[in-house]
């Protein structure tokens, strides 16, 4: 009796193995071969992934009865899938194996699609793996893409090597107040800040184990702190103080305009809770905003536009300026015009200096500073070595590209793009060659569900890399 049981078990195991193998086996014959690659969603074609990223699951955007996919390296097949679903879920273990083996090299996605019993084999999709280090976490704000009102929002943190996402700070904790502008010093979550608006408002500043709620609105800066940039040494935070207004377009493609009726900059000393400013960064005839430090912390870059009482929103354009800063004495020097965008009838927002110090990436739009609502806004790169600036056509799309952040190594950067449908912003990551100043084709942050970016109803705001996990430890 026992023998019979054993035989049944062996037979069942072999049958299952056979079934498993046949499920994932390649089509026995190919009827057509085409030299184009099928469209994937998200577009994971001809791009470069960091070796530590989570598996980039995708959907094949072609209709078929059956799909066969093989993900291969130079001489090894890492993963095959055959089935009726166009969704391809790569097992993390197989992906890790691939990333480990490929190193700084290419891998291929071979796709065949069956329609009416006829198999079509498409040209292989080529992607690359880079062992250049990317930071472990990405922090962002998630909220419904509303106009004026909000309900639920929060700052979230995603572990890039997995799909794990944690809520760092939800506005449930502050009676649905607005939480925004999370910023980190040197990509470290140990020194960070975020604003809370409303009844429980203030700026939460965390430095090591100490977390405080600080009020930054003074008579000199009644609008308080808005857009931040941490000084690399962790003592100062440069803030803009903006009087923000919202407007709604009557016609055209843009729905909303967010504009400043006035703005200035100040530097907040976290040791003394004092504000430092000067005419150079808080001029009465200028609107200064979007401060950002260079890596040594001795130059502050910022955007500035002319202030006129009867400013027409569509005529407000921001140039890029810099001002020297002495961290020892906290004294500011003279301002220098870095990029004259007004001359080109354009406007700059979100300048960010690369960790190598050789580049500034910024967003350029037709006017104003809130480029996330401007479909024409694109990423530009200023080479500080030769003062040339160029449109980053390798990463831009026909829709919005806006907020961006360098990784701590400078080998990667993340940016917000609305390329999927024009309303929801999603984080895209691109590899960056520090020598040539050229980026790879960007890829959407991988998600467990391949349809995620078509169905997720919240928009990603302010993607920021961090090297450590955020533990805000703030009890209001």
């Amino acid at each position: 009796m026992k023998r019979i049981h054993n035989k049944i078990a062996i037979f069942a195991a072999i049958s299952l193995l056979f079934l498993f193998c046949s499920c994932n086996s390649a089509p026995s014959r190919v009827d057509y071969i085409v030299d184009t690659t099928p469209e994937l969603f998200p577009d994971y074609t001809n791009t470069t992934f960091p070796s530590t990223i989570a598996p980039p699951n995708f959907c094949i955007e072609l209709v078929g009865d059956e799909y066969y996919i093989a993900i291969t390296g130079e001489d090894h097949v890492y993963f095959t899938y055959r089935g009726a679903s166009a969704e391809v879920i790569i097992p993390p273990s197989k992906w890790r194996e691939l990333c480990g083996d490929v190193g700084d090299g290419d891998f291929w996605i071979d796709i065949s699609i069956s329609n009416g019993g006829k198999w079509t084999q498409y040209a292989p999709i080529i992607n690359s793996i880079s062992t250049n280090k990317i930071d472990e976490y990405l922090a962002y704000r998630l909220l419904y893409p509303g106009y004026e009102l909000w309900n639920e929002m929060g700052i979230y943190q995603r572990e890039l090597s997995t799909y794990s996402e944690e809520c760092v700070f939800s506005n449930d904790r502050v009676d649905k107040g607005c939480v925004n502008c999370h910023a980190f010093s040197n990509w470290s979550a140990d020194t960070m800040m975020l604003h809370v608006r409303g009844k429980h408002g203030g700026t939460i500043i965390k430095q090591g184990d100490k977390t405080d709620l600080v009020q930054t609105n003074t008579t000199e800066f009644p609008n308080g702190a808005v857009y931040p940039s941490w000084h690399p040494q962790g003592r100062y935070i440069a803030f803009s103080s903006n009087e923000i207004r919202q407007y709604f377009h009557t016609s055209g493609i843009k729905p909303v305009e967010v504009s400043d009726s006035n703005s200035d900059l100040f530097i907040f000393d976290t040791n003394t809770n004092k504000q430092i400013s000067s005419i150079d960064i808080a001029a009465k005839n200028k609107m200064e905003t979007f401060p950002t430090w260079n890596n040594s912390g001795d130059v502050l870059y910022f955007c500035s536009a002319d202030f006129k009482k009867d400013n027409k929103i569509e005529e407000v354009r921001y140039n890029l300026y810099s001002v020297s800063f002495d961290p020892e004495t906290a004294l500011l020097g003279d301002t220098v015009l870095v990029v004259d965008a007004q001359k080109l009838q354009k406007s700059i927002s979100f300048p960010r200096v690369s960790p190598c110090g050789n580049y500034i990436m910024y967003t350029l739009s037709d006017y104003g500073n809130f480029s996330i609502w401007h479909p024409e806004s694109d990423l530009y790169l200023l080479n500080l070595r030769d003062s040339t600036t160029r449109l980053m056509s390798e990463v831009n799309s026909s829709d919005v590209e806006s907020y961006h952040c360098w990784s701590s190594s400078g080998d990667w950067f993340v940016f917000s793009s609305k390329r999927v449908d024009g309303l929801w912003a999603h984080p895209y990551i691109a590899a960056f060659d520090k020598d040539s100043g050229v980026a790879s084709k960007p890829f959407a942050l991988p998600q467990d569900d391949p349809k995620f970016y078509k169905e997720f109803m919240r928009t990603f705001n302010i993607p920021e890399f961090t090297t450590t996990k955020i533990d805000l430890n703030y009890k209001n």
Partner: protein
Amino acid sequence: MRKTNIVIFSLLFIALSSIFVDALGYTFAYREQEHLFLFDTQFFSSLVASVGGVGEYASLFVTQFFYVPYLGEVILALILSFIYLLSSAASYRLFKAYDPLFLALIPVVYLLTSYESLSFNISHVTSFFTVLLSIYILTFIKNRVVFVVVLSLVMALYCYAFGWIYVCAAATVIFLTTLSAYLFKSVVFIHKKWFIGVVLLLYTLFASVAFVQSYNAKEKLMALTELALQKGDWDSVLAYASKSRLNSSLMHYYQNMALAYSGRLSTSLFNHRQAVGSKSLYVTYDTNSSQFTKVGHYVYEYIGHIHEATHWANESIVVYGESSYNLINLIKYNILLGKPKVAMRYIRRLDKSLFYKNIALYYKNMIDRGDMPNIYLHKENNSDVRFTNTQSFRGELDAMIALNPLNKNALTYKFAFLLLEKKFSEFVSELIAATNSGIIVESDITDQYLQALLVYGQVTGASTPLDHLITDELKGRYIGYIRAKSDKNWAELKSRYKSSYWLYLDYSDLL
């Protein structure tokens, strides 16, 4: 006693079903419109991630059936009836005694009266029911130690999944039911049937009083009006609005929306109460009344200001969530604005519901057409940047007319606005201009417009090219009106001139 419980359960079910079908019927449609249940993993995970999220998920699951008349009412009546039965049965299974006071009826009465308010969250019912059902199922575990361990674990889990309050409430109800059963166990009832009858009668009286006291007729009227508006049942909207004697600008807004959408704004504006003037023609954003957020899009959709209608619909979805109503509005507007991918995201959302798949399919097919039946959008490209002034509705009307002078809806609305603002001189000059340019023809000039024209002539002494339209009969009526006014004959004014512009002009404060 077991039979008694079954009988009470059956009676309870019949009574609750009757109440839900009749007096509270509107609440089901209203609640269904407020929420949308989606068969989607993201939807599930976003809800269950928080404390009480499973309860919320369960309540939304139940609420989706409110879409079908009677089905939702029967389901909720069953759930409430089962709350009674499960409490009694669990108590009996644990302690082998029945409660002669039927204390398990108290939470049912409480939940029923609470349900009357539209702000009541159904999850209170579903969560309480689920906890009771679980306790009842667990009572089948015969080993007491295993029962206590499993019950403790399940209840600890439920504290997170549904909220501790439901676990405590269920435990309290079962405890009190058992205590009552224990205390009365040795009592021998001589007239048991009479005793039960009297107890049940007392419950019925108590429930009736509590029900009547919690009944909110104003809320009901408002909800019915809103539902009728959403369905496009304009006559019902007008009927409900006429029932309301409140000077509520929201109710007046609903009324005027019904007039506009049914094409009666130019003919019947003054056939209805206009107690709040031009403010009843639009809504302004008001943080104290988020109800306005939900309905602000109507007027902008009517006048073809689709950008602003989208603005309001977006605010509504942020405040009220992804209800079918909000999603459908955003689908329509984004199709019109040439944003098919945005519309598709909302369509995909709708497609994940149980009862809106056909509507999702309908709009999916509309995407390629790029227009919407009965919604007007001026699509001519205009490179000028113009921003909506949410504080000046008049400015928006002017902008819509300037964008397209043939926008008749905007023009009709502007006429209504000027009449309600009592700016008859401006009205007359606009009317003449519109007639001269052929946008409206003389046959479009209604009696209420002629009344304003007549007043203009009388007050200013000026003649207009449209004076020939004023009939002798109208002149005679005006003379009669002036006589009644000088005689302060309020009865005649109210009876003969109730629907006239003249009465509104002179006595709008008293309307």
